[in-house]
């Protein structure tokens, strides 16, 4: 496995590419395998207080260069998730616990339990676009965001990352309210939908879902850039990364590290190592010895 050490959001990773939350991270064995095959860290599926089955399939729909999903935050509930983290941690690499809730108290309990399970950091899902009462409904309220982050930072001893929604008029308003976080994770999916014209119905059972994949890269890059231009905080870029060039675009827009989700569908687990190799070659060709030298380089 190609190494490319980075420091980000209070952690040291052996490479900058992490598995994004919600993709192949429900089963501990899957996460372990992805870590073994080159991811620098994995973020777990977002875990809540109670067990949820999520929405009835269809929960995904594939378009040209985009994927639409409305899983509906299926999760076993925090009290059933410890085993998976224990299995994943056998890889020896960091596991980041993603959590979602509807109140400061929810997030606090979830964060404390995650910490006790041994995760290296928690990632607050303030941005899932398709579940009422959670995700972006929480994440578009600056005061609530500020209180959640403050409370967790005051209580936990592990780093706290905040994952924000692109479906907002001003990302800076929310980013500033989450500025106590050790890192901002940008972006979650764009809210979207698809219709089957033959039976005249929305394709997803939930009607609305989140758009991911290479179609959203220009939007993700823009949000990372907008935040990097104004704030001195670690940023983890996510959204449409499909190869090392995409990853480098995010880094030059201001991301210190990055996450990958949808691209696993076409490239499989090997994408993490391939991207590490590609970035390594780019650095060698361009005389760059330290990846952090490229962070935000394109910001004007």
């Amino acid at each position, binding site marked *: 496995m190609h190494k490319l050490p980075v420091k980000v959001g209070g952690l040291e990773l052996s490479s900058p590419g992490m598995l994004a939350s919600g*993709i*192949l*991270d*429900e*089963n501990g*064995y*899957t996460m*372990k*395998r*992805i870590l073994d095959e080159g991811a620098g860290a994995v973020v777990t*599926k977002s875990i809540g207080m109670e*067990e*949820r*089955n*999520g929405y*009835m*399939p*269809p*929960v*995904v*729909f*594939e*378009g040209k260069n985009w*994927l639409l*999903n409305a*899983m509906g935050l*299926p*999760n*076993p*509930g925090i009290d*059933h*998730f410890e*085993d*998976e983290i224990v299995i994943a941690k056998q890889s020896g690499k960091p596991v980041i616990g993603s959590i979602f809730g509807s109140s400061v108290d929810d997030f606090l309990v979830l964060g404390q339990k995650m910490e006790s399970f041994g995760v290296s950091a928690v990632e607050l899902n303030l941005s899932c676009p398709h579940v009422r009462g959670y995700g972006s409904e929480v994440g578009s309220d600056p005061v609530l965001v500020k209180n959640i982050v403050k409370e967790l930072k005051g209580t936990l001893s592990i780093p706290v990352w905040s994952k924000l929604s692109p479906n907002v008029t001003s990302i800076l308003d929310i980013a500033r309210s989450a500025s106590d976080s050790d890192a901002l994770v940008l972006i979650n999916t764009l809210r979207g939908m698809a219709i*089957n014209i*033959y*039976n005249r*119905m929305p*394709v997803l*059972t939930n009607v609305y879902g989140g758009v991911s994949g290479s179609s959203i890269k220009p939007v993700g890059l823009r949000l990372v850039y907008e935040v990097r231009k104004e704030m001195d905080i670690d940023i983890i870029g996510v959204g449409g990364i499909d190869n090392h060039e995409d990853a480098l675009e995010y880094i030059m827009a201001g991301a210190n590290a990055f996450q990958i*989700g*949808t691209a*696993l*569908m076409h490239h*499989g687990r090997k994408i993490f190592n391939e991207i590490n190799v590609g970035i390594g070659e780019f650095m060698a060709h361009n005389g760059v010895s330290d990846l952090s030298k490229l962070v935000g380089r394109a910001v004007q």
Partner: protein
Amino acid sequence: MMDRIIIEEAHRETPTVVSLYFTWNLDVKPGQFVMVWIPGLGEVPMSLSMTGHKKCITVKAYGESTRKLCELKKGDFLYLRGPYGKPFSNVKGKKLLMGGGSGMASLRSMIDDQSTGLVAAKTAEEILFEKEFKEKQFITATEDGSKGIKGIITDAMQKIDLSSFDMIYVCGPERMLKAVFDRLKDMNVRAEFSLERSMKCGIGLCDSCSINGFQVCLDGPTFSLDELKYMDEFGRTKLLASGRRVMI
């Protein structure tokens, strides 16, 4: 990317199983599956029980979605995406096709002169595809003894020389697969198993189908005997729709 395809024929196989025939201009191999959308009810994985120019799915009515599928008629539409998954390997020579319940669906397209069927069911009327095998090449076990050997599939396995086959293909519920696997694992035979796990996406993203880090929808559904030897989740634990780990 979802195709809408007209049903050319609907054939009732048993009181609870229906085969739906259609033409679909795609290359499909035995062992692969499709995701079938039943608008308003759900989306379910289904093996292709015929994989030539004419294609077929063979559906057993379990819940609401599959019950609805079983009611479809000629002229109705199927909404499909796929095909997905790794097919069975294509082996020349003597084949044993072992299936339980609707598991026979994924084996059907491999039935030929060289293949022997070993089919288990609860009762005689649930046995699938008997007529498609050569007369002497069909063994059956029913739990109620209404046909063939009284017992389960592993009872029937004792009646045949497993080592005489060039390849053994197995498909059915995971508990059955595990029982067959335990019989075969120390024998000098080649075997492939088609697994069924909860499948929400079918395209290797949601992790609902995973077993020991492999995605059944992508790395499977077919796995070889040797691959399964390294999977300690096999036949032991799985995740529910919520992702909660339970014993099988």
